[in-house]
């Protein structure tokens, strides 16, 4: 299996869902991304396992990264969705995978991405009293010492 094959079958079903396809990943549009993931899970590709959710701060935008695994095809797919800093909200996948619950809480904790429709969106690792999100590049806090630039 290859990413291009997955990309093609997404394109047949949702003609304008894909922003970009690379051998390593597929970048999807934020607005239409939930139906596409529903299709990936329940369709013939059978990505029934949500392996991981994480994010990358690109300073100006945040990429939310989803790793899906298909036991049938023994293959892992990486999905990216780009969110602008001005609107860090994305649909929650808890209705599709219950595993998404804690994974999305972790991404919210570390990056501040708001997952709309999440049943219990609060911090999972850091103290509840914090208001910052530690893996953002502009993170600052008392006692946090950045590595000096050489």
């Amino acid at each position, binding site marked *: 299996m290859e990413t291009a094959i997955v990309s093609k079958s997404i394109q047949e079903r949702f003609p304008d869902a894909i922003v970009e396809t690379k051998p390593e990943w597929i970048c999807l549009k934020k607005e239409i991304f939930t139906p596409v993931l529903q299709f990936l899970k329940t369709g013939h590709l059978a990505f029934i396992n949500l392996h991981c959710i994480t994010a990358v701060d690109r300073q100006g935008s945040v990429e939310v990264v989803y790793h899906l695994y298909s036991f049938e095809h023994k293959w892992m797919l990486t999905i990216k969705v780009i969110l602008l800093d001005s609107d860090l909200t994305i649909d929650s996948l808890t209705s599709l995978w219950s595993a998404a619950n804690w994974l999305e809480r972790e991404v919210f904790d570390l990056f501040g991405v708001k997952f709309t429709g999440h049943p219990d969106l609060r911090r999972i690792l*850091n*103290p509840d009293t914090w208001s910052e999100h*530690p893996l953002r590049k502009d*993170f600052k*806090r008392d*006692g*946090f*010492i*950045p*590595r*000096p630039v050489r």
Partner: protein
Amino acid sequence: MAVNERIPGSEYLEKFPGGEVILAKSQDVFNWAKGASLWPLTFGLACCAIEMMTTGASHFDIDRFGSGVFRASPRQCDVMIIAGTICVKMQDSIKRLYDQMPEPKYVIAMGNCAISGGIFYHDSYSVVKGAEAVGIPVDVYVAGCPPRPENLLNGIIKLQEKIRSTKARVT
């Protein structure tokens, strides 16, 4: 009285004629007993705790120094070996355990993390920069990442030396 003048608080000793020598020596005896039965708190935070367990096992045998009695309650402990990385969410528990220990109490900061944050000094949002940053006074620093068991035993010997050289407190 020429001898007594060299001893701090000799005016206090004068109230007990003939007893001053015994009083001074009993303090030394107490210090020796204190140093030879340092009971540590069963308490590990990270990989240094594995090294501390090794020190407690038969090959290195911390019992030779009277420190093998790891107690599960802070009420029965003399020394707190801070073995490992102190995280932000752990620091309140550590401070509370230290406060619950009865006097006299001593602290060994084992490993670079407990000394200064170690490799987590820069760019870490979750690690406190050493035991002193939590507000726990440290008696002996044992450097290493993690320190060898011999190094921890050396730290215990240093603490014993410190206790034995403690002067009698005269009020």
